[in-house]
């Protein structure tokens, strides 16, 4: 499972500085921070704003616009489950119900301590082999509730 270092201001500053020369650097910086720490800490906002000469509102607005960027540390494992039409056609909604009923996992729910969480996404480009999920950069096809639950691990 992905283990991220705790947020650290100096590390973040280095990342921001190393990418600030790019045209339209905001998204690359946000991605790099999230890759490093697992999320974008609110403390990054002034850092980015200062370096790129943007207002705090601009940076905050950008972060909040995109579904990808988290502002709190991630669960030990994040399973992105496709809920779009081609996966609906092969039962992803039933899978979601089963996860809740049989495994106590609420998709997009608050999650539980120490356990992986499941988040909705809309199409992973695997529409002929659904239901599909993306876990730590690996694409999974023909998944079922048991497999997703196993990826999340047992509740503590």
């Amino acid at each position, binding site marked *: 499972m992905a283990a991220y270092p705790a947020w650290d201001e100096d590390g973040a500053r280095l990342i921001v500085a190393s990418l600030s020369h790019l045209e339209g650097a905001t998204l690359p910086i946000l*991605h790099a921070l999230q890759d490093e720490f697992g999320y974008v800490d609110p403390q990054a906002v002034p850092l980015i704003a200062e370096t790129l000469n943007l207002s705090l509102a601009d940076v905050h607005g950008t972060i909040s616009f995109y579904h990808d960027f988290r502002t709190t540390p991630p669960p030990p494992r994040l399973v992105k489950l496709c809920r779009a*039409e081609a996966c609906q056609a092969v039962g992803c909604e039933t899978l979601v119900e089963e996860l809740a009923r049989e495994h106590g996992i609420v998709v997009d*729910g608050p999650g539980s301590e120490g356990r992986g969480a499941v988040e909705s996404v809309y199409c992973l*480009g695997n529409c002929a082999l*659904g239901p599909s999920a993306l876990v730590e950069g690996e694409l999974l096809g023909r998944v079922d509730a048991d497999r997703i639950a196993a990826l999340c691990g047992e509740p503590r």
Partner: protein
Amino acid sequence: MSDAIRIHVPIDAAALSVGAEAVAQAILREAQARGVAIELVRNGTRGMLWLEPLVEVETPDGRVGYGPAAAQDVASLFDAGFQAGGAHALRLGRVDELDWMKRQQRLTFARVGLTDPLSLADYRAHDGLRGLERALSLTGAAIVEEVTASGLRGRGGAGFPTGIKWRTVHDARAERKYIVCNADEGDSGTFADRMLMEGDPFLVIEGMAIAAIAVGATKGYIYLRSEYPHAHKTLQRAILRAHHAGMLGPSVLGSGRAFEIEVRLGAGAYICGEETSLLESLEGHRAVVRAKPPIPALAGLFGKPTIVNNVLSFAAVPWILAHGAEAYADYGMGRSRGTLPVQLGGNIRRGGLIELAFGIPLREIIEEMGGGTLSGRPIRAVQVGGPLGAYLTERQLDTPMDYEALAGIRAMLGHGGIVVFDDSVDMARQARFAFEFCARESCGKCTPCRIGATRGVELVDRIIAGVERPKNLAVLRDLNRLMTDASLCAMGGLTPMPVTSALDHFFEDFDRPSRPAPSPLAGEGWGEGSRDTAGLSALLTPTGNDSATPHPAATRPPSPARGEGEPVAERRT
């Protein structure tokens, strides 16, 4: 090792999603244990996704396929002498002789599944770079003319003539111009861009380089959705190699003309596929749609003239340059020229990618190639063209795949995705989803979309629950009209398309005995996840009052009203 047997196992994400990596590892282990000399090639996928992982062996009679293979099949494959094409339960015969492959006209996907995606030598050996080489011998105007004459229309959904867009950028005067490849591929049911970027990335690079040479641009961006980490890796590696080989850089193929490409990742926003929203995102902002004019071709990225094209549009160009516009235009029908990569998914027995000249009837694709539903139940609905596309009935499947023919039945081709549903589908629920997706993904700029989508969810919920059905159905029809006419872009403008088609063709699903509302799509949307409360409170009002409190999602911060309420001039442009 010249007598080593070449064995192919795809490295495409779809193949990996069903275990291709384990198969590849098992083959390496088993070959070593048995002392068999092999060379393992990791190719793209052929697009026969129901056969993945598809292992191919090069034999004197051509490439013989075995699939779908699992790691535990590997020992028995060796026992059967598959390395020499031996008989086995999984043996499919010569891959290029399979019906699925033989029926196609693969121009854009000619190399995908065949070659090593990251080998530039392989690329060249299979006709790569001929388009770019020819382009470098022509003037910019002549390249643009060739693209125009081919009849190529943008494959991202809007079907706008590519040559005309290029001419505008060519004729614009500016010290800096940009080439932007739209690799956001947000439409559910589509994966052709992904398959191509993973299976033949140099083709995308070549297409973008030709565009750059044609219009005098020196910098290109590929805007890739973050849901495609495998494609990301492949593109990064391919760009690095193209650079080393002088295909990109200060002097493209020694021409003295500079062109660089950078990949930028999106961040999970469907609207970023819309070209102006994409440009806002590339510039680092909230991806709010821009009003047009100005068009991106004149004032695009950082205000500079910019070509924005879909992955498949760029990828069609090298073939056109190498073989001539006329050869390309010979394929197709009416005003839809060339070939269309169709993506067949959902509840389908044989799903995958099929590249064909425009004009083939949907039925042929779904029934003959696809073999009907995976569940074995009857087909009830087919959505064509992504989440904003219409749902068709079984009776409409004789419609040909062609921009105009589909428009003629109030449907659209979009990016060529076909999603099949069996008779267990609840079309009222699908209509609800269309609104819900729009509410979640709306950029928030204009009211009909931002608020209308949320109202749509509420209305469908009431209809499903049997609350004042006739009245709410009438309101729903009005809402559809309003969103269609008054949304700034096709997100709000086309969301009514799946809804209306569901109402028109599957009305019985809206007219059943009342049921509890379907569980909400979880997802933060713009409000704080209490989407259903608003719907419920409306339901609980004795009158079923339509002026119920709008959903919190509707109260998201308004953005500048520039262009708000303008009619959708061009669909999906």
